């Protein structure tokens, strides 16, 4: 556990605490943004650059705005929020106890035999073992290996996403399309018969032609 991890994790926990404690939902959303920033910091420590970017771009950039809109849309009075907060104290107490216990356990006896232990990610060293089969196969993989180690994770992801799994990319675009069509279908009020004004048509009215001479017989 490095010092930077400790710093960022503490910051994340603090911002979670502040988010849950704050009485104003708008403040909560801002603490949530702070939490997202800390999470992206943790992801930087893990070396997952693309997810850092997603976290910043999607969560901080768009989702936080969406949360703000939801807060404004629902407009829950603060008394109700307070009531709700007090109602969750027992649950929070139990969960906090669990957290403290697990932290203590983690400090006193790091579990070696646990099934939840992360197995080391296979790296290039796997292919350069003593076995001659591995050596011959490592030549086979050499381009990919060199590429994988030489470029960033985002570039690797690009090759997987656009080269190998392009079909999944198309399905993903269809998922986004569902979101688009669904958002329009669910929230758009059907304008039954609103007399719309076309702004462009009004702007492009020719003033010379808009004066109409009324025929004599109509007067």
């Amino acid at each position, binding site marked *: 556990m490095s010092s930077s991890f400790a710093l960022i994790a503490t910051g994340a926990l603090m911002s979670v605490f502040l988010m849950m404690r704050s009485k104003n939902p708008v403040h909560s959303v801002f603490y949530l943004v702070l939490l997202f920033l800390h999470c992206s910091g943790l992801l930087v420590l893990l070396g997952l650059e693309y997810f850092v970017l997603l976290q910043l771009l999607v969560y901080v950039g*768009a989702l936080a705005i969406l949360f703000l809109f939801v807060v404004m849309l629902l407009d829950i009075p603060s008394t109700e929020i307070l009531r709700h907060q007090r109602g969750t104290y027992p649950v929070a107490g139990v969960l906090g106890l669990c957290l403290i216990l697990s932290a203590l356990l983690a400090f006193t006896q790091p579990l070696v035999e646990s099934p939840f232990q992360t197995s080391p990610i296979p790296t290039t060293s796997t292919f350069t073992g003593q076995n001659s089969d591995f050596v011959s196969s490592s030549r086979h993989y050499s381009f990919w290996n060199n590429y994988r180690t030489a470029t960033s994770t*985002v*570039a690797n992801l*690009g090759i997987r996403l656009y*080269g190998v799994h392009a079909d999944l990319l198309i399905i993903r675009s269809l998922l*986004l399309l569902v979101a688009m069509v669904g*958002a*329009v279908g669910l929230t758009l009020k059907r304008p039954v018969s609103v007399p719309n004004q076309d702004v462009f048509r009004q702007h492009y009215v020719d003033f010379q032609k808009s004066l109409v001479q009324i025929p004599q017989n109509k007067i």
Partner: protein
Amino acid sequence: MTEYVGVLLYIAIAVGLGIVILFRSYKVRPRRLDLEKATAYECGFEPFGEARSPFDIGFYLVAILFLIFDIEVAFLLPWVLGGISTGSSGFFAFLLFLVVLTIGFVFEWQKGALEWS
């Protein structure tokens, strides 16, 4: 981790600048509060209701559409950085991805989701 030093520097400067600006404006401005100034004021009356009022759902729709296109952009980034080496097949996958979303965009435009009447 050394390649992130620039980012760290950037964050430090941004935070420092924010603190400096807020602190200076807090110090420089005259603050002469009295009772009348500090009370909430609404056209000569006590405030009737909450200051916040429910939003129109149209904002929400726009936010969702923004979110969708945000994710789309996030998916385009790996193509620029690495997917470009996949050649024409990758490019066509990229184009198909964009075409699907563009047609979705045309759909919602024609539906009037972007209009504000």
